[in-house]
């Protein structure tokens, strides 16, 4: 394979975005798709500017509900992951249950949450939480459970207690798994929030898209999509950067 220069490689993702936008605009124009069915990139861009105020307000709502849900997911995911990862018994006991729980479409929880908490931010936060804690649990638990038995022997013979093994070896060792799961979890959290907002809220990007769609203002709907994916991408990159900073030793091959 030909090697590309580093600067070209850095530009490549941006170039891909530009190509996608051009393709989008070109195809819509070529086939003369009406704007209320599939708006052109230009229409979406125009909506983004025209409705900058409401979009900003709603995306802020989506952003902070997502972050709270994600934060809860991290706390619960870590706690649960450490608990079941540190004990083979609990690992075997809880794993099938977790898998079963994860298989439930989280949108199915929204009506239940609405009954319990009413319409608004709380169901959005909880949906984001429910959808994003699973990968964190699985990754942390896997990181802990795959500890080499020899390493454990080396420490146990010195009189190490379980907590010592966990702190000195288990947790540092599972950090790369943890940070990798954060990247997945943050994007899932956005999915959770938006799904909940489209069903049961009167604020947030999900709600904005829903109501714009019902008025056939497809430009605005697509503007909403763009904002969500932009937010998710920024957060993904943030956690990806954090991962490299915190666990550089696990990524030595990629330097």
């Amino acid at each position, binding site marked *: 394979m030909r090697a590309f220069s580093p600067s070209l490689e850095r530009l490549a993702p941006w170039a891909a975005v530009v190509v996608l936008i051009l393709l989008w605009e070109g195809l819509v124009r070529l086939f003369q798709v009406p704007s209320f069915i599939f708006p052109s990139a230009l229409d979406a861009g125009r909506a983004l500017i025209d409705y900058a105020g409401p979009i900003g307000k709603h995306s802020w709502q989506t952003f902070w509900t997502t972050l709270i849900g994600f934060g809860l997911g991290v706390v619960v995911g870590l706690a649960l992951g450490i608990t079941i990862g540190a004990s083979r018994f609990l690992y075997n006991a809880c794993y099938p249950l977790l898998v079963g729980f994860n298989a439930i479409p989280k949108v199915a929880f929204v009506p239940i949450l609405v009954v319990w908490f009413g319409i608004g931010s709380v169901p959005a936060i909880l949906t984001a939480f429910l959808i994003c804690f699973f990968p964190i649990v699985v990754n942390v638990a896997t990181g802990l459970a795959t500890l*080499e038995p*020899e*390493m454990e*022997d*080396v*420490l*146990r*013979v*010195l*009189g*190490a207690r379980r907590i*010592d093994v966990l702190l*000195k*070896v288990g947790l*540092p*060792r599972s*950090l790369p798994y943890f940070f990798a799961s954060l990247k997945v979890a943050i994007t899932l959290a956005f999915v959770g929030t938006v799904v909940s907002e489209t069903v049961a809220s009167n604020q947030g990007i999900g709600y904005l898209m829903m109501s714009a769609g019902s008025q056939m203002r497809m430009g605005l709907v697509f503007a909403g999509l763009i904002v969500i994916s932009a937010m998710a991408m920024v957060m993904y990159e943030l956690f990806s950067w954090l991962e490299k900073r915190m*666990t550089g*030793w*696990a990524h*030595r091959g990629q330097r």
Partner: protein
Amino acid sequence: MTAFVEFDAVSHAYDGSGNAIEGIDLKIREGEFVAFVGPSGCGKSTFMKLCTGLQFPTQGAVRVAGEGVAGPLKISGMAFQNANLLPWRTTLDNVLLPLEIVQPYRQQFRKRREEFVGWARDLLETVGLADYADKYPWQLSGGMQQRASICRALIHRPQLLMLDEPFGALDAFTREELWCVLRDLWQAQRFTVILVTHDLREAAFLADTVYVMSRRPGRVVERREIDLPRPRPLEATYEKPFIELVQDLRSQIGDIRSS
């Protein structure tokens, strides 16, 4: 003779599948270098766990330093075929790890850190890793990692060093180099060594006494004192007495395998 490690009719079974080792009787002097050889699956690892108190015999008794083994034996250090160094710690910090765990060093770790670092650097220097103390394990070759692993096993100045095929994954030249490293360490410090290995030349070159184990359930079928003069130069392994000794041991193992 007063035994440092004593096995008295020891058998061990993990579950209903029969004994892993059976009827082991042996005495190891303080400062003795013993090697265990045998076919794979002969319970050598079980033997190590019994010695260090990570497992307890289902029959018989294990005594170390005059006392029955009742729990993990902190006077022992262990090294395995995989160096098992922690990739987020430098070589130096890896070597220091046992001192963060074992008593009484654990409590003094913060206060005496400088002194401990001195121990670790001295130890690394004796195995030829002085310049690699601040490197990470993945920046080291396999042989260097194994040297560091042995340093980690020795940092808390154990009386008993347990080695489970420590050189098994290394190339022949590196392996012979490390034999000499271990020989010199042992000759300087005179801890007791229990070395489990597949390599007869390794066993004969390093050990005072070689025990040959049978297939599962593992029993000691032969105890052989190696009376080659010390210090043993590596060249001795290419001379006639040594070669005859190894051939003799080899034929015994062959008998066990074919029986």
